[in-house]
């Protein structure tokens, strides 16, 4: 795995909503995986189609209950935004921050949103290679982990 653990560092202030699985448990393997430092994406064992977010069946062949596969937490920046206006009380006076949409070419091109670590004023390039960084919050109630991204220096 390219991803590194970061201990208790956090990119955004505490107090934003905490992600939890739905009552029916659809995404529970994903969120549990992040807590273990593993990135999991659904893949259909019958037709090999990847999909994210999770669903109860494969969108291509309609086989129920796609498998969860561990995939490497790395990808390419598909798009990005620099957020200035606080849309939540805990972000007031926090300053700008970066969100990125990362495409995973080795997992069918599925995309996921995270923050881009480092200087919030850095120049961001669509297509840049990034590596995942797990951000763990074991003391939160309930505990959870996020997946953040960092520009790959040697890539």
């Amino acid at each position: 795995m390219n991803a590194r653990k970061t201990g208790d560092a956090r990119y955004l202030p505490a107090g934003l909503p905490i992600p939890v699985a739905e009552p029916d448990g659809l995404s529970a393997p994903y969120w549990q995986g992040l807590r273990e430092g593993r990135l999991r994406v659904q893949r259909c064992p019958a037709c090999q189609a990847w999909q994210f977010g999770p669903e109860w069946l494969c969108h291509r062949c309609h086989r129920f209950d796609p498998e969860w596969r561990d995939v490497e937490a790395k990808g390419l920046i598909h798009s990005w935004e620099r957020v200035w206006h606080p849309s939540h009380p805990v972000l007031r006076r926090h300053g700008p921050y970066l969100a990125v949409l990362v495409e995973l070419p080795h997992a069918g091109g599925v995309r996921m949103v995270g923050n881009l670590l480092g200087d919030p004023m850095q120049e961001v390039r669509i297509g840049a290679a990034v590596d995942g960084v797990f951000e763990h919050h074991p003391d939160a109630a309930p505990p959870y982990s996020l997946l953040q991204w960092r520009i790959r220096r040697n890539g």
Partner: protein
Amino acid sequence: MTDRSLKGRVAVAGIGESRYYRHGQSPDPEFKLALQAILAACRDAGLAPTEIDGFASYGNERSDASRLAAALGIPQLRSATMQWGGGGGGCCAAVANAAAAIRAGMAECVVVFRSLAQGEYGRFGQSADLATVSGERAYLMPYGVLAPPQRFAMRVRRFMHDHGIRQEAMRAIALASYRHAQSNPRAVMHGKPLDEAGYDASRWIVEPFRLYDCCMENDGAAALILVDGQRARDFPHKPVYLLGAAAGSGYRAGADPHNAPGYAGANFGTLAPELYRMAGVSPQDVGVVQSYDNFTAGVAMALMEHGFFRPEEANEFLTPDNLSAPSGRLPLNTSGGNLAECYMQGFELVLEAVRQVRGTATALADRADVALVTGGPMVTPTSNLLLGSEAAL
């Protein structure tokens, strides 16, 4: 005209709205605003409110059809339809659903409306205070992707990247909207003109959206009364017919979070051809457009997907003069729209299209016989419609 078309089958009998307010400024609650708009539309049509037998809305409308029917003393409620999801994407579909009910003989006189008091129920630009989130929001909100500006900026950034679209194109849409609002006394931004320097100096909300790229947050209500097309001449105003309508989205547009194959677009790829086919018109026949402006770039996407220009022509086409009434190439959002008239989640745009065809708009287009409305871009389902005069049938 095939038997399954809506073309010419329904007509607009009346339109009306409450006063439009900045969020939190309405002295009246949302439901009362809805009643004010409906009664204004009845007055405009010269119809007794008791003739209403249906309601249609969208965007999780809170003013419930049965409560409205009871409050208005309506003797028989026959149709009550809500378009699923998509927020402002439903603003045209609500009209289409009402039209379909009338066409099918299931209702005679349907009110299509939207009431929205963000001061009373919460601003769209602020996130609700939630301890935990699941489903689509769980993949976004913990990363600070909370409210619509953050939810759409990455789609827009990718759209600009793919087609080389410049910030000036976004600015042109804002400037045309504000220009039109200056002649519209209903507009919240009436008397507050915007120029290039004002746009360029405005703060970033989230790059690439400046303040003036984003719609307002308002209190108000807007309503329209739809009747059978054969009755179109029975009302005080010039007849306005529905020429066509379409709703929905393309392949896996709802693949959350941010996994739609058509990510960097507005979701009109499948709808525009259907709309033009039903109406029997082409983009060249459209004289004026009201295009849902949650963000300026969403308008650029929608116009492109409706065939008004090719991607490589966007920067050249999208200029304030081209988009201005009366004689620009394509007068756009002639009431000021969501940016500068009032954010009625797009329903003010539908009313403005009626005014254009009637010839009563405050910024009237030279060619207003065929008026296009496009609903909320980048959402699913979205929708669109075409209105036209008798000459356009």
